[in-house]
């Protein structure tokens, strides 16, 4: 991960050697790492830390969420918009277990977050003491690294390691569990940032021979296709990606998390890959003679049926995590390194080319998709309001320059398909885990990172109700998020599957909803409900102009489907464009 940390460049701090409590040492370490915002929730075991936090409130802003899961998602979103490491606090026992969904979510999407949990006093660990839980064991499969600290003296080194591990290589969440006595005990404080761990080496030497082979393969290909993933964003390689695409005349398709890595207005942007991706990049994956996969992991939602995936293509895989290479798809050339390093070296070796004929094939399929799917979805003209037209209107009115947050479900796919991300935009979404309830807390985390652009969260009525208590956090800190609640009174995505694959038997997917306007009112959040197409654009304008938080509910077609679809088990070239 390319760091934008504002770490102090001098090593070690002015208070070197001073005697402080473990709790204070922890806060000092965080400041050394450039942290200024913490999301969290207090409780018995972590009280010494919170007590000290009060003395540091000028340098460390603490945002009290309404649930630890919310704090975890907020910290992740904060990391995604700032490029820095997110930080999240929770107490022992239930506080720690409430984090687990958030940790797993950050793990699957490779986002650097340092989780600090408190643990019962060390003498009680292992005895099933009050609010003791084995969070180390529980979080092991979903953290990049975790450790327990039972002596105050060990806190600085543990924190230094945690930050180094979280942000280097393939980023990910790290959890440090600190016993209550270690928070209270004194230590002689000094801090050194960690830059090297013997058993962990994220910096891989670049093998020029592999880069040369890649260049030869690309220069000889007639139908190359770039698949850009989250790794492009994490390594800060968006510029290099654009250079590669433009020089070689190579179309760029993106995974869900790679969407904001390449401007969608660019003539070489081929669209989104995968289950609800665009028609052209899915179909043409199976006609490409070369696939250049960058910072992505061939997730099953992207590849569809692996046996029928890219049969005519040779594959170059540029990926920092060696365990991802040859995991799902056999590749012809593996380049195990940071995307930006590789692309910087590769671009000069690429022959200039326009590949007009190949690019025309995309345009032809784009046209078909536009007529059959995009036009009816984004410009239906009559009937109930569709998700696609709401997203398109927001995209037009923000000119693609926003921090877009989504929850999980149909609306997430509508956003992915119809928001035209610009170079300055960011998408914050739950990709690998598909965690409903991510959107609202993530939006407040993103907005806390002061991204400059407006933060707009698209959320379904189902997912909204999983974490809606975070409206309280938004109220308390007056966080200016714009929430667009797309209300279809259904768990839409599951309903769609029931319709398509379970004979329309709607088992437990219809929802009786509260009056969201009254709810927003209870939190003092400005709100407006849109039920007619004619008022949609005006309402979005009002929302964007509002200074503080705003909730816009749109009553959406109840039983609309997200198309196209690569149905489960189908090949990516076997796309369902219309249904019913």
């Amino acid at each position, binding site marked *: 991960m390319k760091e934008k940390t504002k*770490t102090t*460049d001098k090593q070690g701090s002015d208070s070197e050697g001073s005697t402080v409590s473990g709790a204070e040492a922890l806060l000092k370490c965080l400041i050394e790492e450039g942290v200024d915002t913490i999301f969290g929730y207090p409780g018995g075991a972590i009280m010494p830390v919170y007590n000290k936090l009060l003395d540091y409130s000028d340098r460390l802003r603490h945002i009290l969420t309404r649930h630890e899961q919310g704090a975890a998602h907020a910290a992740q979103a904060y990391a995604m918009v700032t490029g820095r490491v997110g930080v999240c606090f929770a107490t022992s026992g239930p506080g720690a277990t409430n984090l687990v969904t958030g940790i797993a979510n950050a793990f699957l999407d490779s986002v650097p977050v340092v989780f600090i949990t408190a643990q019962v006093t060390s003498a009680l660990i292992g005895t099933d003491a009050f609010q003791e839980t084995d969070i*180390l*064991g529980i979080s*092991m*499969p979903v953290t*990049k*690294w*975790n*450790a*327990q600290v039972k002596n105050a003296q060990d806190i600085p080194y543990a924190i230094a390691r945690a930050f180094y*591990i979280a942000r280097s290589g393939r980023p990910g969440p790290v959890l440090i569990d600190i016993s209550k006595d270690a928070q209270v005990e004194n230590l002689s404080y000094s801090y050194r940032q960690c*830059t*090297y*761990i*013997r*058993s*962990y*080496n*994220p*910096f*891989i*030497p670049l093998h020029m021979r592999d880069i040369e082979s890649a260049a030869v393969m690309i220069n000889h290909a007639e139908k190359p296709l770039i698949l850009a993933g989250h790794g492009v964003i994490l390594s800060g390689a968006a510029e290099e990606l654009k250079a590669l695409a433009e020089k070689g005349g190579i179309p760029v398709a993106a995974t869900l998390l790679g969407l904001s890595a390449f401007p969608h207005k660019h003539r070489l942007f081929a669209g989104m890959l995968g289950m609800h991706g665009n028609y052209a990049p899915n179909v043409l994956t199976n006609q490409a003679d070369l696939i250049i996969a960058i910072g992505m992991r061939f997730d099953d939602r992207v590849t569809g049926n692996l046996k029928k995936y890219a049969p005519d293509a040779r594959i170059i895989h540029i990926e920092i*995590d*060696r*365990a991802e*290479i*040859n*995991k799902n798809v056999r590749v012809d050339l593996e380049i195990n390194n940071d995307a930006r390093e590789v692309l910087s070296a590769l671009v000069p070796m690429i022959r200039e080319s326009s590949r007009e004929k190949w690019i025309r094939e995309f345009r032809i399929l784009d046209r078909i998709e536009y007529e059959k799917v995009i036009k009816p979805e984004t410009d239906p003209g009559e009937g109930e309001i569709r998700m696609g037209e709401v997203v398109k209107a927001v995209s037009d009115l923000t000119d693609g320059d926003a921090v877009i947050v989504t929850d999980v479900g149909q609306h997430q796919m509508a956003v992915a398909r119809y928001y035209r991300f610009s170079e300055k935009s960011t998408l914050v979404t739950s990709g690998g885990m598909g965690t409903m309830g991510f959107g609202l807390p993530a939006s407040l985390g993103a907005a806390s990172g002061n991204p400059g652009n407006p933060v707009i969260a698209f959320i379904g009525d189902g997912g909204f109700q999983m974490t809606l208590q975070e409206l309280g956090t938004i109220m308390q800190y007056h966080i200016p998020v714009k929430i667009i609640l797309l209300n279809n009174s259904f768990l839409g995505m599951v309903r769609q599957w029931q319709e398509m694959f379970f004979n329309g038997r709607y088992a437990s997917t219809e929802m009786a909803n509260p009056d969201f306007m009254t709810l927003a009112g209870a939190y003092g959040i400005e709100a407006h409900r849109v039920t007619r197409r004619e008022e949609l654009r005006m309402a979005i304008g009002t929302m964007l102009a509002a200074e503080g938080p705003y909730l816009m509910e749109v009553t959406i077609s109840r039983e609309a489907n997200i198309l196209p679809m690569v149905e489960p088990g189908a090949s990516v070239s076997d796309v369902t464009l219309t249904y019913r």
Partner: protein
Amino acid sequence: MQQEYTISLFTEDHIGILSRITIILTRRQINIDSITASESAIKGLQMLTMVVTTTPDMVNKVARQIEKLVDVVKVFVHTSPEIICQEIALYKVTTRGLMAGSMIGDLVRKHHARILEVTPEYIVVEKSGDKEEITALLAVLEPCGVLQFVRSGRIAVTRQVKELDAYLKEMEEAGRGRTETLEIYN
């Protein structure tokens, strides 16, 4: 396609690392046939030797996943011809049975076993060797009445010439080199 592999890996001596490794194997439904943990030739590094039966494709995938763990230094995967390996077994046999067969001499000469303890009731025999040899001796002793039998996990050294410290040096150089350039950017 399934085959026996010896995975030798070197880790920092940190609590929980074995757990992290077994989580990876469990998720892939791979059974550990045997496991041995010990110190390694390099100070502070632990060595784990595991025997698993799986496909070549899968063993490579899990090896990469294990090597990715922060506290794991290096993972080696070997098939039998690439390593020299031994297991050790102890057999507690009834003295009456063993004497009746008058096999004691054979044990030492033919099976290269050692006698560790002799009492009127039982005799403890020790043998090191590969799995087949140890199983073969068990079959021989069976008629004499085996009271207890225990076999260690496999330990192995590789035939390859490049040793771990050479890998360590390479990795260290790569890491240090990068650290310097990073500091320039800051």
